[in-house]
């Protein structure tokens, strides 16, 4: 299919973007890398009256370090994210996630902000942001709002953004000493949407997990924080029994829908496998693996 007709407007600055957006009305959509939006147009899943191209707005780019946090502009592409030394050093989870995102062509154009705003439940970056306690910086014409990532994703392809808000940047706390993180996903084929995925971050003291964040993707309508599993792990040495307890607790955290990849039971099983593997990566083979 081909896209329905739409007007195309290119913004040259953030002010310009807001001006064009409000003039174009509520049926207009913002275009950044276009890696999800253009596909939805081609399938006629959305029919915007106009696309406001913000891909050349200078204020929305760049990766900077400020006050113990890393600020990533909404227009930073996945490829730029993966190549950034700042990201590798201070938010290694994101660097680890990049190769899992689709294929090279998509990573060259797709943007950080676009991925968050699109809020695909099987996408990697939204789950990472939740696991990392990121803050989404939303902008309107008149001001700025800071939204914790855990509250940003509100459902299937929906976010807490207001109709006149765009994502300007994301702020991520720098990894603290002793903190470790990892992301793993299971896909039928390289670049496919994950059957199930996990992003985990925790502080490791000896073999004990402190304040673990366990977030799943591809198993619900948004990134799912597995609070019960995290509680089962928190403050305890990651012995096989603890891991098994956390795996069991996932039954209360997740309620995966069936899809072409398999039944809800299989998805829950995969989530449990992923949890053990992620913990294994975080604390090494010393004691974490459940039988």
């Amino acid at each position, binding site marked *: 299919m*081909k896209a329905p007709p739409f007007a195309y407007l290119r913004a040259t600055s953030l002010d310009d973007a807001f001006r064009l957006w409000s003039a174009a009305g509520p049926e207009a959509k913002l275009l950044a890398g276009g890696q999800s939006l253009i596909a939805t147009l081609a399938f006629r899943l959305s029919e915007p009256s106009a696309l406001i191209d913000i891909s050349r707005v200078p204020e929305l780019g760049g990766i900077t370090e400020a006050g113990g946090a890393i600020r990533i502009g909404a227009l930073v592409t996945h490829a730029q994210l993966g190549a950034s030394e700042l990201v590798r050093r201070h938010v290694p989870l994101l660097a680890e996630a990049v190769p899992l995102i689709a*294929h090279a062509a998509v990573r060259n154009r797709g943007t950080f902000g676009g991925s968050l705003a699109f809020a695909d439940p099987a996408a990697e970056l939204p789950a990472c942001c939740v696991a990392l306690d990121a803050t989404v910086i939303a902008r309107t014409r008149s001001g700025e709002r800071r939204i914790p990532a855990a509250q940003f994703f509100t459902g299937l392809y929906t976010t807490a953004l207001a109709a006149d808000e765009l994502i300007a940047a994301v702020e991520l706390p720098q990894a603290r000493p002793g903190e470790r993180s990892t992301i793993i996903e299971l896909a*039928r*084929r*390289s*670049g496919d949407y994950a059957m199930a995925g996990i992003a985990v971050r925790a502080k490791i003291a000896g073999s004990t997990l402190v304040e673990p964040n366990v977030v799943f993707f591809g198993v619900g309508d948004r990134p799912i924080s597995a609070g019960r599993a995290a509680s089962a792990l928190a403050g305890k040495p990651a012995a096989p029994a603890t891991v098994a307890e956390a795996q069991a607790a996932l039954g209360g955290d997740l309620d995966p829908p069936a899809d072409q990849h*398999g039944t809800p039971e*299989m998805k829950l099983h995969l989530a449990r496998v992923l949890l053990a593997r992620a913990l294994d990566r975080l604390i090494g083979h010393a004691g974490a693996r459940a039988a």
Partner: protein
Amino acid sequence: MQEKVKDAPSSQFKWVGTRAVRPDGVDKVTGRARFGADLAMPGQLVGKVLRSPHPHARIRAIDVSAAANLPGVKAVVTRDDFKDQPSEFIPAGEMMINYRDVVRNVMAREKALYEGHPIAAVAATSTSIAKQALKLIKVDYEVLPHVIDVVDAMQPGAPLLHEDMITAGVEPAPKTPSNVAKRVEFGHGDVAAGFAQAEIIVERAFTTKPVHQGYIEPHACVASVSEDGQADVWVTTQGHWIVRAHCARLLGWDVGKVRVTAAEIGGGFGGKTVVYLEPLALALSKKARRPVKMVMTREEVFRASGPTSGAHVHVKIGARKDGRIVAGEAELKYQAGAFAGSPVQPGAMCAFAPYDLENVKVVGYDVVTNRPKVAAYRAPGGPISEFAVESVIDEIARKLGMDPIALRLKNAAKQGTRAAYGPKFGPIGFVETLEAAKAHAHWRTPLQKNQGRGVASGFWFNIGGETSVSLQLNEDGTLSLTAGTPDIGGLRASLCMMAAEELGVDLDRIRVQIGDTGQLGYNFLTGGSRATFSSGMATVEAAREVIKEACKRAAKLWELPEDAVEYMSGGVRPAGANAGKHAPMTLSDIAGIAGKTGGPIAGYARINAHGAAPSFATHIADVEIDPETGKATVVRYTAIQDAGRAIHPSYVEGQYQGGVAQGIGWALNEEYIYGPDGRLQNPGFLDYRVPVASDLPMIDTVIVEVPNPRHPYGVRGVGETPIVPPMAAIANALADATGVRFTDLPMSPPKVLAALDEARAAGTAKM
């Protein structure tokens, strides 16, 4: 001149066997190559097809009046625009066709038989008007119960697709209609007596899913019919003479009035050997009196163009403890889609072809279901039956504690073996592929944790057929070679190399093109792994005609008898008693005086290429299984195959690798997912998972060369055999790693995991 196989090492040749630069390469990498959808004509209209949303429905009435009256719509066609055809099965290469069905497949008549079945087509001045017009067509359907699965379709009381279908090949003929179009049987000996001697018998049932050829380029054509009835079609196809024949027949036009030009082709794999859009575009163009362009979407390709059969296969093999197979029996049920004509016959013929068996029997059933009519797909029918047989052979080897290559060597067909399907084999290279596998480093490399290794062999017949080639000697001594088999797998390069070898000229002196149907005699299509074999044979003949004529011209000039002139290294010279009497002349010299010595010089070969020889392969696969998720990953793969002689080894290796890549998809991921409503749920590459590059290991290749004595350069077709062994090689590797025998394709993570869980509970799993 060489009349026989040149069986010395390839190095005796200047061009044959080298990795010359491919003549189609620059155009393809620079975007100059013109594929099916690249042609545009002044004033052309856009043609679109209305397709049935129902898998099975009687069409009570079609009202196109509103669509026809929409401004911008220039023509509408329906079943009323195509004359009915008598029922008559005609051999078409590796498949059979029946025009009664072809006319119904391009445009539904009494009933829509699958979701996506064409109901009407419109031509309009723009895509959006054409689409709008489709929405205005009113179709009165009586929705009927449908049947998707092949076994369900064979049950008594199953919904009947064709109320008059009486199973052929059964005596006495059944009295009631069914969905079984045909029964076939092949074999010899006495299987009951054979099984009575067996010390081990393994019997298993297998299922395979329909898989699509997955060509990147969708079906596309432009048709133009002039006011005086001259018709032209530009189309992506594997055989433009076939397109011409089908279109002329369906439209009732003279063959000579239809000229078809083959575009550069973006993959076919057998799927572009039939017509879908072309007759519709011609009918629309005739009505509209303007050119009409039609291009399928990917969704249309999946819903309405041929995949290969899904099947149910039952195999029973008996052997003695020393590994000698004493009997083999198989029953094949292949679904044909909406019309008769699955590749069950070739499937039945090749099931046991690699083995020298005294007692063998294969029975096959061709079964219609409410799915798109299957089309040929690389070795049509073979991968399905051979997957089942090669799996059972592996199981016998494991149960006997025998090396699976040794077991195959013990039973391998050789020159003189009577094939399970009838004839005796000539020189074949099956044993050589097995020996090469045994000697390969891959076979001896230790496996890592959670890995298994499987081996499987494969066979395909290969065909020859009608072929025409012309070779003109231009006035400066360059040559123009015109062939009629579209270049899918390196045809142009291979023909150039054989012509250059014969003529003793440099490769860059020859330019090769694919001619249209007006330029050459009949050419059967590029399929059956026949193009390099057949067009190569014709090219050699045409080159020898040029050489003969060059000698004749020199003889005339030198006033010598013709046989006193010999052709050597790109030129002529006096021979024998007259040697040295005249200075040698090059082919360019001869070309320069052609006008004075008798006119233009050209060779034109029109042959029915006989002597196509089978190609055997043996593949080794290493597969790693994730014991917790059931995901299988192919980590190492080696494909060994007899090419007869590899004219251009890189293309031959590319064929081996491509077949393996498609086989890996077939084994692990590819399947059509139908809902209970009979509608396809994954008509796109997002959810129909062909492997991407990063899913594949480096596919190592070994070219074995046992020359085909019936071809001047020893060529065997190589394009199809490589897709035969992968499914069994991978299943055998999974069995090696897990202890579980997988019999149901694709071996996707949910299935593998469930089977592992079951085997763990039973205590039979190895992981």
